[in-house]
Structure formats: C-alpha cells, structure tokens
C-alpha cells in the first residue's frame, strides 16, 4: 500500500470506501493514479464479522447522532435512527442485501414521463440510458450479477416459494430470484452462496459482493492506494482560485490532519456527502461548497420501503436463505391508472428473530404484538421498493443545536411524504396482502417504514445548473476538481435498488476523471 505525503498535491482524495468510493479508488489506482481514501470506519473482514445480530449491527452501522423531522413514518418509529447505513471499510456494501436491478430507460426521464407534478422537484437525468447501459454491463460483470451474462439465478428459498406462489395467483409474470450480486457459483475468487440468511451481518463466505474484499484489496495491490481507516473528513478546503486543494480530517487518535489534493471525490452516502459540503462553507462559498444553486442537501430521496408479513399455519422458516433473493417486477411501470406515477418492485425479505420486533413491526406491545412473534417460524416476508418523489424541502441540513464528537453540527433529515408516495405504498401493500391471502395466509401484518437504507439524490446531477449540484459525470457545477461519487448524485430515485447504478456511475466517472487529468483540465 502506498504512503502518500500530506503535502503531496498530486493525489485524488476519495471520502468513503463503499460502492461509489471503493469502486472509484480501484478504477483510478489501476490507471496509475495515486489515491488517498479516507474511511471513517474500522476495517472488518469475513473472519471478524459478528454472527450475533445485535453485535453485528453495532459493528457495522453508522451510529453518530442525527436528527430528523417531517411527517414520514421513520421520525415516529425510529426517532434516533433516520437512516441505516454502514461506517466501515467497504461502506454499505458490507451490510447490503445485494439486489442489483437496473433503472428502466424511462425512469431516467422522470420529469418528462411523469409531467409537472405539484410539490415535486423532478428532473430528467443528464445521461441517456444508452450511455449508462455500457457501464451497467461492465458493473454486472464485475459484480457477477445473477441472470446476466449467463450467470445462473440463485435457487428458490422457502420464503421465495411463498412469494412466487402468491405472485402467480395474482397473474404476475416477471417473478424470479432476482438480479443479485451474490454468487450462484464460485466467481472471481469468491465462494458461492450457502444460504446463511445473514447478508445484513456481513457475508462470512464473501459470496455477496462488497468493495471490502474486491475493489479495495485490488486497489491496494496496485501500490497506488493509501487507505486511511478511522479517518473522518470534517472539511474540504479551497484555494484562491476557487478550486478545492485539501481535506481536513480527524484521524483514529482524534488528531486533526490536512491532506492536500488535486481532486476531491465525496462518497460518504446520501447524508454525509451533502453534510460535508455544507460543513465546508467559507467566505467565498458561504452556502457551502458546490452550492451556488442552493441544491446541496435538497431533493433527498430514500425510496418507498415497507414490509408486509404473511402469517401461515405451516412453517416457512424464512430466515433460512439469502435475505432478498426474490423479486416481482410487474409493477415497475408508469401506469397512471394505479393512481400514482413511477414504479415499484416487490422484493423478498426476512429479518432475524432479534431484529424482527424492533424493525419489522409497527410499534406495539401486549397480546396481539406477541402473537405475531409467536408465529415467527410461519411468517413469510416481502417489502416494497418504490420510487419516491424528490421534493425541494426534503433535505439534509446542518442542525446547529446538536453536535457530533468533533463539535460539528449533525445532519438533520427532513422528509414530508408526497401524496404520490403514500398512494404507491398503499397500492403495493394491497397487492402484497392479496398475494399472501391467495396462498392461505391467516393474517397479513403491515410493517413500519424502516430507517432509510437507499439515501440518494441529495447532491444530484442535472443538465440545468440551477436544478442540481453536479454535471453528468458527477463533477460539481461550481468546482471542476470536486466530484460527487455516490448515490447522492442520482438525479431521481427510480425503483431499482441503487447500488448497481452507483457502481456503474463510478466506473463512468473514473474514465472521465482519468481523461480530464491527462488533458490537465483538472
């Protein structure tokens, strides 16, 4: 691994090592570019992943304080945990459930397709599907995505059998075990899935793709990566020319450090990325970096997520098997007859016993609540994963009343649901309830809106400088050597789980950065 000097002005500094940052680090270092990655979390491994659900949660999760507001269900049910993502080398690719669908071509034209919907800030993507497709193909090969490039699907689990039978009763056609970045056979030096059901705790087989044990060690092997763990970026600095030139961070001992940079790429997930830009305000950029449009932190999307549980009179044992390996794609369409725009997926889901009452169920206690738990082995599960509407006021801001351990204002996450979001959720819950009832469920239980895991669009790419933060390559409109390299850059949320798209955009961005560096334009 490289050791890059603090005063070295030639390095690219990437903040975050997840799907965006980890991928970008790999791509740049293999092109001979020196990279410093600042990762706030510790480094785990397949050997060190805890197999105790509560301990695994504490081992991997970003638990620094945040606040929230707005009418969304998370504020009521999970007041101290608005979002659930990772703080560890590999970022959220360590705990993700590895569903890797693509956006549909029409989802990249949300504003054109859905029209002028009051109370939204929809835009079209500045990238065509054809441009993106080449990078989807590359990303799918890198991740070994199932049902692509001849890679077999994962076998059907018990939980999926229930979902499949219900879906067929309702006449759904596009139902299968999903496009998953989980090995259905040994691939890329990693083993195949043994159906542990512990995707969220970190895959001890390494069968599930993560930058932790693919991109990052490969980037290290190039000799061009300086990975600094337990290093939390607190500020990006700029020079008199308005270009960024250094990143201030706290190291593992809490000491403040300053790393000079030729280019800075921010990939801290949809909350921390805009927070860092806002924290980096200066006399020249009083609204924060790359924020002349006022769009940093705005248009925050998290997708419509919600559990539906079917209770049967026979065992399902849903915990046995890959957590999310099953999907129904028939509702991924824009059909106004349903009473809302945009599409949604229905995806298989299960939660381990300790987590189920805490995350999977609405607030409750007493006999009725306990009776659901009493049926734990007979429960099948699904969730909706749908497109939510961007809104200017759904945004990440700095809360100056609450400080983190470095004395810096924490992020506040504000979400007011749009009526379209609520109509979509209701439609999906009805469809999933009908599916379970069609195959004999004695009771269907609707879960809460869980802490958001798909945090996107909060520093979005836009063709119009006034409508977003970055151009079609994630390069910020205001500062040419500052890039958005994670899900924050997505212009709209779509109905696809975001990781594949984040990886595809990072692959594309790496080519662009490399080209621009060679041409000395950045």
């Amino acid at each position, binding site marked *: 691994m490289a050791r890059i000097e603090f005063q070295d002005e030639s390095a690219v500094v990437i903040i975050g090592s997840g799907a965006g940052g980890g991928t970008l680090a790999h791509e740049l270092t293999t092109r001979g570019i020196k990279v410093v990655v600042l990762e706030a979390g510790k480094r785990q491994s397949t050997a060190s992943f805890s*197999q105790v*659900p509560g301990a695994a949660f504490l081992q991997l999760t970003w638990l620094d304080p945040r606040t929230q507001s707005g009418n969304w269900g998370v504020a009521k049910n999970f007041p101290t945990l608005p979002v659930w993502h990772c703080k560890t080398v590999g970022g959220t690719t360590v705990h993700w459930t590895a569903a890797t669908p693509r956006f549909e071509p029409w989802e990249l034209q949300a504003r054109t397709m859905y029209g002028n919907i009051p109370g939204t800030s929809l835009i079209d993507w500045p990238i065509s599907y054809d441009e993106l497709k080449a990078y989807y193909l590359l990303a799918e090969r890198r991740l070994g995505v199932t049902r692509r490039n001849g890679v077999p699907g994962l076998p059907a689990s018990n939980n999926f*059998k229930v979902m499949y039978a219900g879906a067929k009763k309702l006449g759904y056609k596009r139902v299968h075990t999903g496009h998953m970045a989980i090995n259905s056979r040994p691939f890329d030096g990693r083993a195949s899935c043994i159906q542990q059901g512990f995707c969220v705790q970190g895959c001890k087989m390494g069968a599930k793709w993560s930058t932790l044990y693919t991109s990052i060690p490969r980037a290290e092997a190039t000799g061009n990566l300086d990975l600094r763990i337990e290093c939390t970026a607190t500020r990006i600095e700029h020079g008199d020319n308005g270009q960024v030139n250094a990143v201030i961070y706290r190291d593992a001992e809490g000491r403040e450090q300053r790393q000079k940079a030729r280019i800075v790429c921010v990939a801290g997930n949809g909350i921390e990325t805009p927070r860092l830009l806002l924290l980096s305000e200066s006399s020249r950029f009083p609204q924060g970096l790359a924020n002349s449009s006022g769009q940093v932190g705005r248009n925050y999307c998290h997708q419509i997520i919600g559990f539906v549980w079917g209770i049967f009179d026979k065992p399902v044992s849903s915990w046995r098997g890959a957590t999310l390996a099953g999907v129904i794609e028939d509702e991924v369409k824009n059909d106004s007859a349903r009473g809302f725009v945009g599409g949604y997926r229905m995806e298989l889901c299960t939660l381990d016993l300790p987590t*189920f009452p805490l995350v999977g169920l609405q607030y409750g206690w007493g006999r009725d609540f306990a009776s659901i738990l009493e049926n734990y082995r007979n429960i099948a599960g699904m969730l909706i994963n749908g497109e939510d509407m961007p809104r200017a006021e759904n945004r990440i801001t700095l809360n100056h009343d609450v400080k983190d351990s470095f004395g810096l204002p924490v992020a506040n996450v504000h979400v007011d649901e749009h009526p379209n979001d609520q109509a979509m959720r209701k439609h999906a819950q009805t469809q999933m309830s009908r599916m379970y009832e069609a195959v004999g469920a004695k009771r269907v239980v609707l879960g809460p809106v869980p802490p958001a895991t798909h945090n996107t669009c909060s520093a979005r790419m836009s063709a119009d400088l006034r409508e977003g933060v970055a151009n079609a390559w994630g390069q910020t409109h205001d500062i040419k050597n500052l890039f958005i390299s994670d899900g924050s850059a997505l212009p709209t949320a779509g109905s696809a789980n975001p990781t594949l798209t984040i990886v595809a955009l990072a692959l594309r961005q790496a080519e662009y950065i490399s080209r621009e560096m060679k041409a000395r334009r950045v």
Partner: protein
Amino acid sequence: MDELVTLNRRELLKTTTGLLTGWVVAGSPLALIAPGRAWAVDLATLTSSEGATLMSLARTIAPHDKLDDAAYALVVQAIDSDAAKDAGTHKMIQEGLAALRADFTVIPETERVAALKEIESSTFFQTMRLKTLQVLYSSPIAYAHFGYEGEAYSKGGYLFRGFNDLRWLPEVPVEDSGPLPEGA
C-alpha cells in the same frame, strides 16, 4: 449460549442485592438446552422485589405463556445492569416501579395492561418496552422457543439444512430460480 452461563445451577449466594431464581419447566425447549434445572440471576442494584415486578412487567409487554421465566429473567438482568451503570437510570426505574400499584404482580393481566396503558407515554414504560423487546428475543432460550435457528455459517449455511424444504406449495420452475450448487 453464553447467556446461559449466568443461568447455571448455583448455590444461593449470600448477597445484599436481589436474586431471581426459578425452575426450568420440564418439557420446555429450555429444558433441552439448559445445563441444569434450576437457574438464578444475580441483581447488582435492584432488589428482589423490584426484580419480580420487572419480571411481571416484561411478561405483560411481551406475553408468551410457554416461554420460560428464565428468558424474562434475562430482561430483568439487563435492566438491572443498566441501572447499575447509571444513577439517573436507576432512579427512573425505581420511581417507575414505585408508581405502579403495589399489587401489580398479582392482579390479572387485563388490569396490568390497563395500568400500563395509563403510563404508556412515560420514559419509564418506553424504556422498559424497548429493553424487553431488545433482550427477550435475543437469547438462546427465545431462539429455542420460537424455533429460530440463528447463524448458520458455523454449520455450513442452510443450503443443506432446509433452506428450500417447504413442501406445502409448488416448487418454483428452474427458469425463475436457479440450480443448486454442486453437491447440494
């Protein structure tokens, strides 16, 4: 099964703090995994009486009639541990318990529920509810009771241990699922 170490059969200790004791119900799932028939939980801070009331409270919040008292005793132990770490928490719990009717542990469940409904918005109740849910379903006793098998990595996953053994619905056609790995 680490938690069970604290539930091991032991002599009643001479102690100034509380002690919860009980007997594992013969034929319960716990009987299959517990090392002995008697269990005991030391309380570091709370009294035996407070422990007994918390036990009743936990059983009202999450009533599972056939789940052994030992599982609920772990909840009490966790609450006691929190109280031991923080004087403010200890005071909040003591005051919360003292505010309950004196006969809380002996009144019928419907009356216990009614009593808790009245204090549902209190910090005391909300803390007890969350702690109960966090601890009760995390123990090996609960795993056994609810039939949950937990981590499977150490046993080679569920690939050979029933991940697809459901037989009361049709099998999924191979084009919508996928082949089993070799050897499965």
